[in-house]
C-alpha cells in the first residue's frame, strides 16, 4: 500500500530517446527526492518535455528505466500521488464547454475511483484548491473565456486537488506576465515549504527560477548539471546556452 517512508519520488536511469535518427535524450539520469524543489532548465528543444513524458509513461524510452515512488513505472498505480500540468495545458481542447469547477473536478478522479460521485468533502476540497490558486471567484466561468495565465492556474488547481505529494509543471509560466510569474513562484515556494510538496518545475527561462528552487538540473540532450541551487553557477548556464555544449556533454550524470 502507500508507503510514507519513501524518499526517492522519481528515479530515471540511463534514459535514451530517439526520434528517427535524431537523438533527443542520451543517457539521462535524474532523481527527485522528497521535499526538493527542482528546477529542470534547458533551451527550447533540449528534450525537457520529452523527459517528463517518459517519466510519466506517456512516451516509451528507447533505453533506460523509470521508477516512481520506488516502484517500476509499469507497476506504479498510485497516480493520485502525482500532479502534472503539461506544457500543452493551455491548449487542451478549449472548444470544450467546461466550467472551471468541472475542469478541477476531473483532478479528483484518481481519488474518487470507480462508481463514484463527488461528495460534500470533495466539493469543499475543490473550493479550497481554487482559493489557493486565487481562482475561486471564477468557479462557474467557462475555461475557454479565461486568459492564458488564469487557465494555467486552473490546471494547477486540477493537479493539486487530489493532494499529490509531487507536482510536475512543464513550462507553467509561458505567456504569463512578469508580475504574475513572481506571484506564481511565491505560491509554489509556499506549497513546497508549508505543505512539504515536492516540486519539479520545467522551464527554459532561468531568470527568476534560481531564486526559488532548492535544486537545479540542466538538460541539453543529456544532463549537464544536477545538484543543489547553491552549487549551481552562472558558468553552467552560459556554457549550456552558449557554444561550449560539446565540451560539457562529457560530464553528464555527475550527480549523486
Amino acid at each position, binding site marked *: 500500500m502507500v508507503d510514507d517512508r519513501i524518499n526517492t519520488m522519481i528515479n530515471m536511469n540511463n534514459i535514451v530517446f530517439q526520434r528517427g535518427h535524431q537523438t533527443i535524450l542520451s543517457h539521462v539520469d535524474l532523481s527527485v527526492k522528497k521535499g526538493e524543489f527542482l528546477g529542470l532548465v534547458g533551451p527550447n528543444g533540449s528534450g525537457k518535455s520529452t523527459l517528463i513524458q517518459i517519466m*510519466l*509513461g*506517456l512516451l516509451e524510452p528507447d533505453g533506460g528505466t523509470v521508477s516512481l515512488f520506488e516502484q517500476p513505472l509499469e507497476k506504479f498505480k498510485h*497516480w493520485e500521488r502525482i500532479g502534472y500540468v*503539461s506544457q500543452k495545458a493551455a491548449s487542451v*481542447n478549449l*472548444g470544450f464547454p467546461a466550467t472551471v469547477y468541472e475542469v478541477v473536478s476531473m483532478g479528483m*478522479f484518481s481519488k474518487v475511483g470507480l462508481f463514484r460521485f463527488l461528495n460534500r468533502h470533495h466539493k469543499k476540497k475543490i473550493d479550497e484548491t481554487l482559493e489557493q490558486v486565487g481562482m475561486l471567484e471564477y468557479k462557474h466561468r467557462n475555461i475557454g473565456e479565461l486568459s492564458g495565465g488564469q487557465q494555467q492556474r486552473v490546471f494547477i488547481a486540477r493537479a493539486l486537488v*487530489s493532494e499529490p505529494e509531487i507536482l510536475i509543471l512543464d513550462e507553467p509560466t509561458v505567456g504569463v506576465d512578469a508580475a504574475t510569474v513572481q506571484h506564481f513562484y511565491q505560491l509554489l515556494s509556499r506549497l513546497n515549504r508549508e505543505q512539504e510538496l515536492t516540486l519539479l518545475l520545467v522551464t527554459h527561462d532561468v531568470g527568476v527560477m534560481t531564486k526559488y528552487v532548492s535544486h537545479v538540473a540542466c538538460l541539453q540532450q543529456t544532463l549537464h548539471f544536477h545538484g543543489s541551487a547553491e552549487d549551481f553557477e552562472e558558468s553552467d548556464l552560459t556554457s549550456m546556452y552558449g557554444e561550449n555544449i560539446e565540451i560539457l556533454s562529457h560530464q553528464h550524470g555527475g550527480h549523486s
Partner: protein
Amino acid sequence: MDLTFLERGIIAALCIGMIAPLLGTLLAVRRSSIIADSLSHVTLTGLSAGVLIGGTFEFLPVHPLYTGFAFSLAGSLFIEKLRQEYASFQELAAPIILSAGIGLSAVFMSLAPSGQNEWYDYLFGSIVSVGEGDLLFILVTFLVSVVLFIVFFKELVFVSFDQEGAAVSGIHMKTINFLFSFLTALVISMSMKVVGILLVGALIALPASAALQLAKSFRALVLWSIIIGEAAVISGVIGSYHLSLATGGSIVVSAALILGAVLLWKPLVRIFSRRNPL
C-alpha cells in the same frame, strides 16, 4: 408486448434521439465526428453482407442488424488502432474506410436478391419497418449503452478533454478508447432502422453542434444535446406522419433546422444582451 408498428417505431426513435446526441457530444469534443460517418458505412457493408447471406442461404439465421453491428465493432476497433498509431489518420484513413465501405456495400447489394425497398429502409430509415426483433435489438443496445455511459461518464469526459491528463491520473486509456469504439458501434447499429445508415452521422453530429453553441458547461452540453435530439426526433416523426414524408429524413431535417435556428439566435441574443447589460 402487443404494440402497433407505429408505437414500436416511436419507442425506437425516442431511444435513439437520446443516445445518438449523447455520443455526439463526446465525439465532437474529441474532434472525431468523422469516425461516426466512416463507421456507418462499414456498418452498411456488414448489413448488406447479412442481407446477402440471409437471402442466399435461407436456412442460416442471419439477421442484418447483427452482422451490421459486428462489422461496425470490428471497424471501430480498426479505426481506433489506426488513430492511435497515425496522427494524420482523420485526413487519410477515414475517407479510405468510408469509400471502401460504401463500395463493398454496393457490390453486396447488387448480388443480393432482395428488393429496393428493404435497402431504402436501411439507408434512410423507416420507423414503420421496426419489427419486434428490431425493437428488442434496439432496447437491449440502448440499455447497454446507457449503463456504460453512466458508469464510465467521468472517464469518457476526461479522456475527451485531455488525453495526457487522463493517462496521468491513472485512467486505463486502452479500455476507455475501446469503450468509445464499442459505444459508437452500438449507437450506429441501433439507429439503422430509424434514421438509416446515411443519416445516422447527422443525428449524432447535429444536436451536439447546436448544443455546443448554447452550453457553457459540460453538464449543459449533455442536457442540451439530448433535448435537441429528442425535439428533432419528435418533430420529425410528427411531421413525417402528417405530411407523409420519410421519417429518417424528417428527423434529420428537423435537427438541421434547429441547428440553423440556434446559429441565428445566438447573434440576436448577443445584440439583445448588449443593450440590456445585467
